[in-house]
């Protein structure tokens, strides 16, 4: 079964535990500037939105890489940057439509979410369930269920 990160911004409080968990998992430090998942704050709307790579099936970053440094992890389906092959040309950052693969000046390489090998630290760290790791075929199931609950074929009865 392939699994996928599923993000529900309505549940995000902006605590950034996911960013700390990501940097700790990948770099052994608590340093949100190194996190591959970012929480964006839309203050005036009162919304906080976690955002990271969604592991496109047709991954443009992978297609764009001239040295084949981005490869599929067979176990998780994640598109993984192989740092020793990456030459830091940044073409993938241009190709990615979502901006979720990023250049890191310190290392001279790009970085992106690799699903932590199948146990994403961000999802484990999220205290509110805004980030979950679910069956990829059912990423919309919760939302579907919510709408199903609102579908009322008997106008007078309450949709419990």
């Amino acid at each position, binding site marked *: 079964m392939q699994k996928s990160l599923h993000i529900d911004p309505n549940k995000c409080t*902006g*605590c*950034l535990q996911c960013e700390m968990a990501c940097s700790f998992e990948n770099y052994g430090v*608590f*340093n949100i500037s190194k996190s591959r998942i970012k929480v964006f704050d839309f203050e005036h709307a*009162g919304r906080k939105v976690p955002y990271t790579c969604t592991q496109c099936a047709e991954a443009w970053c992978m297609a764009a890489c001239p040295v084949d440094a981005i490869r599929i992890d067979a176990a998780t389906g994640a598109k993984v940057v192989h740092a020793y092959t990456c030459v830091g040309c940044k073409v993938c950052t241009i190709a990615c439509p979502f901006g979720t693969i990023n250049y890191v000046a310190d290392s001279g390489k790009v970085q992106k979410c690799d699903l932590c090998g199948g146990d994403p630290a961000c999802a484990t760290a999220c*205290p509110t369930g805004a980030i979950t790791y679910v069956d990829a075929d059912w990423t919309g199931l919760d939302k579907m269920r919510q709408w199903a609950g609102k579908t009322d074929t008997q106008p007078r009865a309450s949709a419990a």
Partner: protein
Amino acid sequence: MGWTRKILRVDLSNGTCKSEPLNMEWAQQYLGQRGLATKYFVEEVDPKVDPLAPANKLIMATGPLTGTPASTGGRYSVITKGALTGAIACSNSGGYFGAELKFAGWDMVIFEGKSAKPVYLSIEDDKVELRDAAHLWGKTVWQTEEIIKKSHQDPQVRVCSIGRAGENGVMYACIVNDLHRAAGRSGVGTVMGSKNLKAVAVRGTKGAGAIKNPKAFMQAAAAAKKVLVDNAVTGQGLPTFGTQVLMNVINEMGALPTRNHRDVQFESARKISAEAMAEKRPTDGKSHLVTNAACFGCTIACGRISKIDETHFSVVNKPQYWGASGGLEYEAAWALGAANGVGDLEALQYANLICNEDGFDPITFGATVAAAMELYDLGILSKEQIGLEAPFGSAQALVALAEMLVKGEGFGKDLALGSARMCAKYGRPELSMGVKQQEFPAYDSRGIQGMGLAYATSNRGACHLRGYTVASEVLGIPVKTDPLVTEGKADLVKAFQDATSVFDSAGVCVFTTFAWSLADLQPQLDAACDGDWTMEKLTLVGERIWNMERLFNNAAGFTAKDDDLPPRLKTEPAKTGPAKGLVNGIDKMRPEYYKARGWNPEGVPSKETRARLGL
């Protein structure tokens, strides 16, 4: 570790910034943040200093858990001699600024002297410089953050700043970070303004990596987070209702100070409560509350994000206030509302937004308006003097007075003094409801007796965050005590004060203490910090910090007579509710407390006590 082991010393008079190693011997004795910064402060500053003189210093300090995944580990504190109180001041704030300062590699920043012209401090990891702030002076907190983020071309820079209140010498100005989190009390922003320091902008990319035992730390942090989730207050009450969960509870207890403490119950409490914030408004069909929000690292998320009613008289044609923003929290809702008898939720939120936008403490401001309304009610202040009619309950007056304060016009100049100085100016000092010139927060000590002692003996003037015996007397945490009696409160207040000193020095939020005891914090500190951090050591650290602050205040001229409540709370019994007929028993509790503390009858720590604590 836990600490970055580096402090930044900024000499505003000479315009220099230099890095110094952190005194690790002191770190073992005072932990961090509140305790450690206060140690630096008392070693370097004359207790008699005028708070607004260049010789006063101002320290922004993180704790060892700031910037770590410990729940709520994003706090920082501002330590100085308070403009409002003349006592040691320590104001704590959440948001994201504190963690960013840690990520930049600094445990604390010490500001000394006074700049000849407005400046702000820019920190990008090790690159630190004072920059001209002429273009920021006169700007609000919100404008300042926006301008700095734009000019630094970095949306992730974190900013703390003063608004026009801090520039204009309002005695209770805050330092606001991340738009609506504030180091709020005692006039720490006034001190910052007196130094011509407008803001601190910080960007940190180093992270908080110096954890002694990362594996043990992650386990301890996870276990402690579980305690927060499983607790009814931190797991459900605070995320759902915020601190506003208290409004109806405290009102029912007859401990909601109303109309400058004339009453202890507010007939419109429900209209300004958490429940009211969640209800749909008749005007636009939307609820006031938009969502809850967390500060950095917080797994409680008590913060309120609200949208004001665009049709309310206070914000007609003012779209800058229509977006989602912080508030209302319980203390602000009480101070701007019940304290003045104002039951208009939207008016309270408007006044709250003004407090955030221009950086002044809603507790002291609200309580000062309450005192002004009483002076008006007694005929001591006239409509002409105030500039408008200001009876208790007038939302129009509240809104107008907030605007007058920001502009520094007319009666706003009197309001800027705080209630103690304002009431003294009009010959009625006893009408100021506070201790050490700082106003009470939202708990009437006739209905919650222990809070009277906590207020009277708080080292920064009247405050709920130095010894929150409400937890025990109202909520039964850690054990239920009778709020209507004085028996046992001396020991209770001491225990809360000492434990809180540790939490405030660790980098975490005091709200964790609804669920955590020191025993939940200890394993996190022990895994993160160099040295053995046992319960015994932490207990002693807490008591040491409290006594150090006390000794500073004693040297600044405070005596036992300053550990007292206004006559109203000692002579005018509560009129209604469970505490009907009661006054506060401070005169009975005070000597018991001094004894429990090992202080002499004048309220000075004895030689034996000082020796025991290494002071």
